[in-house]
């Protein structure tokens, strides 16, 4: 998030308002699914834009806070902690996905649901292998 410029959050705010307006009034009767999606995405973008605005004005008023935030973001220990937490979360997610796959079989869910969860699990493992190979070459 670049907090130096004001136009990106303004653009984001306009897009979010357009999406919410479209979802509520333009396509609500014709495409209810798409309308819900527009409202959901619009709402998320709206909150993101508001946070962006608040940060912009806060940092403009207190440059010290901005500098401290930048230091916190670039701090090697913080980066290590974040990466480690993400790796642990991925491990937990993989175990959870295996459990969900078995649960779908036990609950006699449709085959595509079981295959879907297995596919997500396999995609995660493939990504892990790809990145391991990539970083093995780079580092």
């Amino acid at each position, binding site marked *: 998030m670049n907090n130096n410029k004001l136009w990106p959050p303004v653009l984001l705010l306009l897009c979010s308002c357009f999406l919410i307006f479209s979802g509520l009034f333009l396509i609500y009767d014709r495409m209810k699914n798409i309308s819900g999606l527009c409202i959901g995405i619009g709402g998320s973008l709206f909150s993101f834009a508001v946070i962006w605005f608040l940060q912009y004005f806060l940092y403009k008023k207190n440059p010290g806070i901005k500098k401290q935030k930048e*230091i916190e973001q*670039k*701090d*090697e220990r913080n980066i290590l902690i974040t990466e480690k937490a993400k790796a642990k979360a991925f491990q937990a997610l993989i175990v959870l996905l295996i459990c969900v796959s078995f649960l779908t079989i036990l609950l006699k869910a449709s085959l595509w649901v079981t295959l879907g969860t297995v596919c997500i699990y396999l995609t995660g493992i493939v990504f892990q292998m790809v990145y391991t190979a990539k970083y093995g070459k780079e580092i």
Partner: protein
Amino acid sequence: MKNKLEEIRKSHGIRQEDLAAALEVSRQTIGSLENGRYNPSILLAFKIARYFQLSIEDIFIYEEDVNHEQ
């Protein structure tokens, strides 16, 4: 890896906050380094050594060296 960072910092009369600001790291990182909970990257080790105008070996002690001394 042990270190003498706290001792050296205090002998220079510098607060953790000031050292952190000079090295562009968080104060928590300095605290963790001093407690021995975190080992710095080689870049940060060089930054610390340069800041105090010492060599890395003057600040950081490799465990094997400690065992040899004992």
